[in-house]
């Protein structure tokens, strides 16, 4: 019978050494909402990890913290529920809380972690577009210490990240949002919950008076990885917000993404939804920026 060894390290160092020791044969386990399902689906193929390294007891990975000087730190082990319910995230990083609150069911949200959602590297990961819109950084720990990477560079393709086999995503750092910033995330799914994004759109607008000083638009499920929409952002920055401007930016973001067709939607449909949702998220972000 197919078996695997289960490790439960109690420190980050110990976890890293286990990964170092077992290399490709090991897989880290956080909430298990992706990994366990994948292991079950592959159960007949004999191609499964022979070592599971549980991250549950690694204290360095847990929790959410915030300071006015350093901004937000989300431990890779923070659950979607913790993020969705965090008062500071809800207040200052609204889109991130909205992304976390959409992942699966309540039960899924209580198990799934931010690190897991990012490391699984699904193009549809709901936590990714909001983090991209906030220009988050991934803090990676390996045998030779820590390194930081812009989250945009963390994703390499569907299921692929910049992590080496012996590295772990330890936390995500999100800079302090400037005053006058508003953000929003939503996704399109055929049903209202328990679903996977067909399109996800995050927008963050920083207003300077009546002008958009900084615009960030990030898209999920319409490219091999979650992506920013730099041309749409450029179209927005320096302009006075208006329905026409948002419509123009939405057209640009629809044009610059590269969706595939699959059973969840045609490429044409996904582009259309990107256009609709970019407009909506920009409007929402603007309202929030204005209402402080």
């Amino acid at each position: 019978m197919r078996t695997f060894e289960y490790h439960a390290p109690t420190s980050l160092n110990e976890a890293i050494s286990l990964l170092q020791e077992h290399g490709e044969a090991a897989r880290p386990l956080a909430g298990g909402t992706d990994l366990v399902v994948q292991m079950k689906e592959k159960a007949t193929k004999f191609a499964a990890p022979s070592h599971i390294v549980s991250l549950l007891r690694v204290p360095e990975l847990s929790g959410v913290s915030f300071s006015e000087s350093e901004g937000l730190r989300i431990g890779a082990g923070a659950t979607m529920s913790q993020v969705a319910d965090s008062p500071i995230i809800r207040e200052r990083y609204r889109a991130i809380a909205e992304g976390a609150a959409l992942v699966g069911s309540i039960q899924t949200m209580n198990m799934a972690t931010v690190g897991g959602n990012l490391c699984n590297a699904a193009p549809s990961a709901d936590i990714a577009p909001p983090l991209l819109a906030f220009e988050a950084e991934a803090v990676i720990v390996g045998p030779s210490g820590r390194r930081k990477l812009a989250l945009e560079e963390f994703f390499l393709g569907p299921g692929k990240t910049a992590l080496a086999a012996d590295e772990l995503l330890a936390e995500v750092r999100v800079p302090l949002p400037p005053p006058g910033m508003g953000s929003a995330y939503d996704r399109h799914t055929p049903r209202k919950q328990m679903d996977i994004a067909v399109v996800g759109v995050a927008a963050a607008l920083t207003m300077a008076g009546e002008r958009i000083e900084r615009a960030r638009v990030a898209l999920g499920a319409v490219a091999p990885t979650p992506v920013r929409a730099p041309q749409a952002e450029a179209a927005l920055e320096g302009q006075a917000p208006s329905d026409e401007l948002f419509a123009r930016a939405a057209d640009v973001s629809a044009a610059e993404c590269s969706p595939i067709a699959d059973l969840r939607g045609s490429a044409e449909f996904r582009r259309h939804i990107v256009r609709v949702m970019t407009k909506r998220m920009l409007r929402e972000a603007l309202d929030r920026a204005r209402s402080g």
Partner: protein
Amino acid sequence: MAQETEVREEEMQREYRNVGKPVTRIEGAGKVTGETIYADDMQLPRMLHAKVLGSPYAHARIKSIDGSAARQHPGVEAVFTPADLPEYKKNFSNRRGVIFPDEEVLFYGQPVAAVLASDPHVAEEALALIKVEYEALPPVVDPITAMEESSPLVRSPLGDVDRSEERGHVTVGVEQEEAEGKPSNIASQMNFKRGDVEAGFEQADVVVEHTWRSAVVHQSYIEPHSTVADYDASGELSVWTSTQAPFYIRDELSQTLGLPENKIRVTATEVGGGFGGKIYLQELMVAALAMAVRRPVKYIMSRKEDMLAATPAPQAVIDLKTSMTRDGKLTALKSRVVYDSGAFPGAPMLPGCLLVGGYYKCENLDIQGYEVLTNKVSVGALRAPGAHNVTFAIESHMDMMARELGLDPIEVRLKNAVEEGDPLPSGQPYPRIGLKQCLEAIAESEVWGRRNRERGTGNRGVGLAVGGWLGGLQPASAIVCLNSDGTINVTVGSADITGTNTSFAQITAEVLNVPLEMVNVTTGDTRTAPYAGMSAGSKTTYTVGRAVKLAAEDARQQMLEIAAKRFEAAPKELEMADGVVRLNGSDEKTLTFQRLGRLSTNFAAPFPAVVGRGAITTRKMAPGFTAQAAEVEVDTDTGEVTVLGFAVAQDAGFAINPLSVEGQMQGGASQGLGIALSEEMMYDSEGRLLNGNLLDYRMPTTRDLPPIEAIIVEVPSEEGPYGARIVGEPSIVAGAAAVGNAIADAIGVHLTDAPFTPERVLRALGKL
């Protein structure tokens, strides 16, 4: 007959103490606390687990199967390829008549071999070691293409087709023609004709013609197919299985395995959802393997296996042309009804053809039905099988014609609705039915009341549709026994899938005039229970309920006779209430049920045990109709449809347990909304199922469903207990049509393909 009707009307006016009262389901507590024992909870000594290898091709020839490596795998007890199976009577024209194909694989996921091991994971692992060499054959996936003369054949020609399972769901005296002549993919066809449709179209002021498509949908019960079987030293086969049809399985196993029926014990374990899909499927394989290895065998389908290889409900393509005069009279209806049966016959073409022309009076009909084979999984029943597909077509047409003529959709339907005596397309007249009463009731619903208020506000709309189901008919029987402490045991042979045993307790308690708590109802196995038909076709309360009532009346009579002898009085001088029999209302001459129980069970007791017997046959249908209204909001930018409100009016005849009836109405409506909004099994061009999981096969969640208003209409049936008629199925029938009509009310366009996904809505709006 007239006399019986009078009696019934008198009965209807009586004040009941048990029937007609809302009662929580007796077996409900066990289900919500997890105490209920399901087939998968069965553990027998020396039991083996079966795992099954499915075909990776939708159509292929098996050139060779080599199970030797799997046999060598540590922990594996046995491997069964087609060549290793014990003798059984094969019937390759029926899905249930084949364990594994000898040669030709007909659908993706079709079982071709099995492994047995003490550990299910070991069995599963060993499947990968079975070497199968296939020669791929061209798959035929689309039913319309399959009908073309140039289409490759789905399979080698069929032999005789056994349609006994379908008749359990709908029992009407019509035979369909099996296809003859040149081999084609059309398994059977039928035609109903009345009047002259062309003349009917000529007389009309509006003619509407469209093609309506609906998807393959899955019953998606919580509990997948689950079976345990054992064959003992005395030559008796025991099968514990999640089924709606224990006696049917017994009969089929007897014929296929060559065992007498009295040596087969089928126990219908508590069913974790069936909806027509749990009749008879894997039981033959599990029984045959258990007999071959002489050990108990358990087989529990995974969710994926269940979606690949159980029996979902068919897709259909309905061409419909209808016409109406300016004053709203339906003048002609012409339809081609095509059901995709998958790889084996068994599609509900007959009910589809009956219902497409069965809701309205129409002098000119021409309905042509086709049951077409494709290389997809074979279909089964899903709650009023086939009805929602055709209802989507005809009910969309009724709205389109009404709209074009500027007529009210309820008025148009009332004007044409069938009533007692009107003929079905087959010519058979309807018995007493309540279609009009349902329409009148839905007109009073809150949801319909919002129709005119919502018009023109945003993209909201309200629509309605009717639906119906004719129901199955089968003999039934029941036994009611008095225990020595005065309590009552009822034994039936019907699987309780909808709370029927609770209703039987109510009926028994009503007849004996006792509190419900004094009655306990058991579903026995096929050796101990009196015969009942399958719990399908909505007929369980209608048929078994009548047998229970008779059995309770028989027990009552026996008890009164004992009391009469004790009091030296005539039975008619006695009355029975609250577990006591009294002579002429006196408190002096009384006998408690407990006393009666002792007098008929104790050592040297003077009276025989009280055993009431009820057995019936019913040949009269009690069709159930419904009218349903939906209120929707359409996001015209994203194409999302949100159902804001839904109402179901349904004729239950007499609601023995109104709580249960409402639950059936709401549950069926929820499934109807799934068919309308999101449920669809998707296949690629090679016939492979793309979404064999409950993430991408989208059933509505609680957040997708609105509150569902349930309005019970009661037009008594002629033979059902207390006037009850069929209840379980009609509620699923009208959802797609009602939502489609509400969408059209909101955005002015009818969608012709269900489910109404955002992408389809956007295409209908011309936005993609």
